[in-house]
């Protein structure tokens, strides 16, 4: 059931995910993922219940195994279609995320600093100076995986995950950085906390960030954090 598109620049591969879904693998590029996502959404494929991006792929879920059987060909056709500009293509948004990196919140800042051979202040400066892309949202509701962490700041996950990481915690896990939207167990090194609510079911959309968004962290003081409204 593996199919490779013959004439695309990046080798594309369609693989089944169980009996009612498939994954379109497009290579580790945010641009390729977003383009594929938009093409599939624009195609309004019959029997599709949802389409969700990951790092290097887009998953398409169908109502039933029969719909998947028919959908395989439709997905292939939709992706081969040459489109100059996809209608309704979303311009990336830039979202500023305030972060308090002070010691009360930056639980593992010292560990990260030591591992990187930097001072805690340097870690903060470099983390806040970089620009990030939301590669995908997953793990827990609203958890953004961000690409763009300066290589110097990459730090392996904690040997023992924390049983409870507070909501809003900003962490570094390997070469990635992300934000815990909800209190949950977690193994990433926590370097700060944002007062923003990353996930709120009363809001539309519930998740603050979506794949393709650009993110900038802005360092704030404890006082600013406490006084943050919303």
């Amino acid at each position, binding site marked *: 059931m593996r199919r490779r598109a013959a004439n695309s620049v990046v080798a594309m591969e369609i693989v089944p995910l169980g009996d009612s879904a498939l994954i379109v693998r497009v290579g580790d590029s945010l641009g390729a993922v977003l383009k594929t996502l938009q093409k599939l959404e624009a195609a309004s494929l019959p029997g599709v219940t949802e389409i*969700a991006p990951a790092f290097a792929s887009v*998953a398409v879920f169908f109502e039933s195994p029969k719909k998947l059987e028919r959908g395989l060909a439709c997905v292939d056709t939709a992706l081969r279609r040459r489109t100059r500009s996809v209608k309704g293509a979303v311009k990336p948004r830039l979202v500023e995320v305030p972060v308090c990196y002070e010691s009360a919140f930056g639980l593992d800042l010292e560990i990260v600093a030591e591992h990187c051979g930097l001072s805690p202040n340097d870690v903060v400066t470099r983390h806040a100076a970089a620009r990030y892309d939301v590669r995908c949202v997953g793990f827990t509701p609203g958890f953004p995986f961000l690409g763009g962490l300066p290589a110097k700041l990459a730090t392996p996950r904690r040997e023992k995950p924390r049983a409870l990481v507070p909501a809003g915690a900003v962490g570094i896990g390997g070469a990635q950085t992300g934000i815990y939207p909800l209190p949950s167990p977690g193994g990433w090194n926590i370097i700060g906390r944002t007062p923003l609510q990353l996930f709120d079911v009363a809001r539309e959309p519930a998740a603050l960030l979506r794949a393709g968004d650009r993110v900038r962290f802005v360092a704030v003081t404890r006082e600013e954090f406490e006084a943050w409204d919303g």
Partner: protein
Amino acid sequence: MGRITVLRAGPLTTVQDLGRPGQRALGVSGGGALDLCAAQVVNLLVGNPGDSALLEVALGGMRLRFEDARRVAWCGGDFEVRVAETTIPAGRPSVVRPGEELIVRGARSGCRAWLAVSGGIDAPAVLGSRSTDLRGHFGGYLGRALQDGDELSLGKAGAPPGEDVRVASWGALPEWALTVIPTPILRVVRGSEWEMFDRESRHAFLETAFKVGAQADRMGARLEGAVLTRKKKRELLSEAVAPGTVQVANDGQPILLLGDCQTIGGYPKIAHVITVDLAPAAQLQPNDTVRFEEVMPAVAAALFAERENDLQKFCVGLNLRYS
């Protein structure tokens, strides 16, 4: 509007429906009743639309008191369910009268049951579903499992149940009523990383039994057995996983994912349990034994179509009965 008082909640009783599709891009899993077929069947048995909110009971130990007369039905594991002094068999619509209690005792086999009440559980829809998302703490009853003393509001029920007969003389097919299969053989289709496993591991996966480990919940079950190894160890980029996905952790042990599983995962996917076999998979509990058998995708599709067709006929029949 009627209410149910939860006198004893049991270890993990949650409000569920057919799940929350369309939210994966936000990291929200589909969730819903772990056995979507059973959930539809019990709803139809009491005259509800198939997607009404109901209770998923794990391991029993539940006691409810009803404020008004309701029709009830349950399916799933081999539980003992009683109203007043009467045993309510699985898959048979029954009547609970005002002030009466319904008791679900521990299961002789299996671990989950679905209990529908005419009118449905009246919980607000969150992101398009009344299912409880335990990790996200939203949906269902206040985003959590039920606790002793909770009061559940019920929706408006149709025609009031007849007062004379406690248990209907008709019901669901026996295989829909009791869905436990002891030492089940779950049918699978190949996963996208099937070929990456060495021959011995692929053979062991299909030919040897696995034990369900201590970690088994609505997200999935860790299995213990033959160590499954890949020809080459290579880090994979996280991509979508789904209920039924069997991924293999770094220690070579498989994890069978269920309805509340996370939306993406980075472990290799050796296989996927086909949709119709998620019903027996939902009954697995620690120390149970499970085996896997490969089928072609066309078989998975035919079995699903057959079940949908049966459900459709069942629905038409019950609509006639309750109209």
